[in-house]
Structures are given as C-alpha cells and as structure tokens.
C-alpha cells in the first residue's frame, strides 16, 4: 500500500506545467488534489514514470465571472467551490452536488478540474459539467481549445484530452435566473461512490418547463444525459405524472452495467426513482 517510485515535477507556472506535460506525455500522471490518483498509486493500480504536481501553479486556481456564467480554474479546491457565492448564484447545481463528494477532508484537497479530468462515471462533477453544458478549456504547449462537456467524456476514466494537454478551466454557462436544481445519489454508505445518481436543473417560464437538464452517474462508462426525457419535459407542466413518464423515458436511454454492488436492473430502477425526486425538487 505504498506508491511506486516515480519522477516528481512541481511546476510553479502554467508554462512550466505544459512543458512538463509535453516532455513526459507518454508516461505521466497529473496530480491535482490527489484524492483519486493517490489511492491508485497506493494500490499500485497506476505506475506513472513522472508525476506532475499542479498544486504550485497558482494561476490554475480561481473563480471568475464568465459570459453570464462562471469560470472555475481547474485547481480550485472543491471545498472552496462549495462555499463560493458566485458559483452558488450562477451554477447552483454544482453547489448542490459538491457536498456529495466524499467527505470534507477529501474536498479540502480534491479539485474541480481534477475530478472532471479523472472522469469517473460515478463521480459528481463530471455529471454537473455535462448537465450544464460546461466548456472545458484544454491547453497544451502550443495551443488551446475548448471541448464541450458532451464531447469530453469518452469512456471509463477516459477523456478527450490529448496526452500533452491539461484541463485548465471549467466554464459553466449560466441558466435562467431562479432555475431549480437537485442532486440525488444512492450510495452504500454516506460519502461512498454512488451506485446511481442524478443531477437535475430545470428552468420554468410561467407554469411550463422552458429548459431541462437531466444527467445520471453510475449508469454507464461515462456520465449520461437523458436527452429524450429532457425533450419530453420542455414545454410540459410539472406534475408527478409527467415526471414519472420522463423517468421511464430516461430509464430506456440509460445503459447501466451490473456489478457486485448492484445489478443493472436495480440501477435502472433506482435511476428512475431518483430522477422523479430530483425533478420534483428542482421544480418546487
């Protein structure tokens, strides 16, 4: 239960970090908050030749207004994001989801960008990014590009990031003012990885749903949007019946796998139940 030996690089500027990333692209791990990488190292499930520690790159942490929404530096600690007023105002779904990540001691170290780049399909922040159509800014030594969240999560612990790229910022577009949000997950124990979870953000216009986002975790290799269910809900009046129908639609879109913790059928069923609860809460 001790990490394997590795070469350690601690850049203090983004430029140095991108240089290191380019130099060690074929065999490196990026250490953000370490709350996923360190267990993988301790369990000897990862053997990176080089570990690039981003903690010293101050310019990667910070929260700023962005185009009606909010931009969050990749190295912003989850605990900082949890208490941030701008995120609460512009991306309340993230504020609501954050306390579900592990425990305070984990969120003190864990970062927003680290969780998204790690892309665990049972993790909360990737689903939040997907639900809110976040734009993920990737940088490399020569160049920068923006990846839509919908294109970012490629598979289990796999993203669209190239081996020489770093996720530097998470840009979350704002939704209509006063929209409702909810995040529900089922885990074996409080703080454990979710068996199934759902993130919902719903904006009403009058008594009708104008914008609806429904993203699930723990139901496939990546976080998943239930886009058919969303489409069905837009224009509808919120009611238990409509939500039940939307949940059925969502269940048909999901492709959960069974494992020792829960069968595929159980996950699908729970996804439907949680979706109804989340939709009701988000439209209260």
């Amino acid at each position: 239960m001790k990490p394997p030996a590795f070469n350690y690089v601690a850049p203090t500027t983004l430029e140095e970090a991108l240089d290191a990333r380019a130099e060690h692209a074929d065999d490196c791990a990026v250490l953000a908050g370490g709350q996923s990488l360190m267990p993988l190292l301790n369990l000897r499930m990862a053997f990176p030749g080089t570990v690039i520690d981003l903690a010293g790159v101050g310019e990667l942490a910070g929260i700023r207004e962005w185009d009606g929404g909010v931009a969050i530096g990749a190295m912003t600690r989850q605990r900082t994001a949890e208490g941030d007023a701008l995120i609460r105002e512009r991306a309340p779904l993230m504020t609501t989801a954050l306390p579900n990540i592990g425990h305070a001691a984990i969120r003190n170290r864990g970062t927003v960008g680290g969780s998204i780049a790690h892309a665990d399909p049972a993790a909360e922040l990737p689903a939040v990014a997907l639900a809110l159509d976040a734009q993920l800014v990737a940088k490399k030594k020569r160049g920068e590009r923006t990846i839509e969240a919908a294109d970012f999560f490629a598979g289990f612990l796999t993203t669209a990031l190239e081996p020489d790229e770093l996720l530097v910022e998470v840009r979350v577009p704002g939704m209509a003012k006063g929209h409702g949000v909810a995040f529900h997950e089922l885990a074996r124990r409080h703080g454990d990885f979710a068996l199934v979870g759902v993130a919902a953000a719903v904006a009403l216009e009058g008594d009708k749903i104008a914008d609806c986002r429904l993203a699930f975790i723990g139901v496939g290799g990546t976080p998943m949007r239930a886009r058919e269910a969303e489409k069905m809900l837009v224009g509808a009046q919120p009611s238990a019946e409509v939500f039940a129908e939307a949940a059925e639609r969502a269940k048909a879109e999901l492709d959960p796998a069974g494992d020792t913790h829960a069968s595929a059928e159980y996950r699908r069923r729970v996804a439907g139940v949680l979706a109804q609860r989340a939709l009701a809460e988000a439209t209260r």
Partner: protein
Amino acid sequence: MSIEVTLTVNGVTRTASVEARRTLADFLREDLELTGTHLGCEHGVCGACTVTVNGASARSCLMLAVQADGADVRTIEGLLEPDGSLGVLQQACADSHAFQCGFCTPGFLMTATELLAENATPTEDDVREAISGNLCRCTGYESIVQAVMLAAERGA
C-alpha cells in the same frame, strides 16, 4: 528521487530529505517518529490518518510529503497542552469514553479540530456530518459525538 522539504509540524520546523513517493503519513510516522497518526486503509476511506494541513483536514495517506513543503501540519501529538496534559478535545474524549481500541481516535480528533475551529457551537448533526468520513468499528459513534459536543461546551 530525493527532495528536500521544510514544513512545520505541531509548531516545530522540520527539514528532511524525502523520496517523492513518501506519503505524508509515512513521513510523519517513520521519519519524524510521530506515530500518533494511524494508518488504516491507506487509500483514503477510513480517515484514521487524518491530520490538518494549514488548518484544513486532510488524509495524510493521500498526500505526498513533498506536497506538504511549506505547510503547517498538525497531528494528534499537537493537541496536547504545553505542559503535556491532555488538550480539551482529548480530555473530553476520555471523559465521554469516546474510544475503545483507540485506533481511529487520532483521525477523529483531527477532524473534530477542524470542525471546532470553523464552528465553535456545532449541533449534533454538524458533528455527525463532520465525522462522517471517519470509521470507528468499536464505539457505534454515539460517545464520539458526545465527546465533540462536550469539547465544544468546554470551549475547545
């Protein structure tokens, strides 16, 4: 690969040369011989190795010693009063019978230290939420919650 680190541990400045892969937990226990920090699961689940880093609770098994360079680290040994007697939180634990085997206790106390620094008058729910990341296999937690409440009452 060896790297020089300088950090403050329980108010004492320490400089050491550590291997990059050395966890903060092993650094505290093996290099500084501060064996009060206990290692349970070594992958961030049990909370036994919790210390505070610049006042914020952290799993010392999920941090490298090199990441603590320049930091102010506090461990269970740092909760003692200057005269060597038990600190308020420690005494409250003893008075509440908040441990049996005691293996998890250091992690609980460091987690509670962060809580009480942020919130001097927590409710029982606050305490339960705060310590939810620490596992105890003996007590059933009730006496630990009582101990933290008692420590708050005594102004820890």
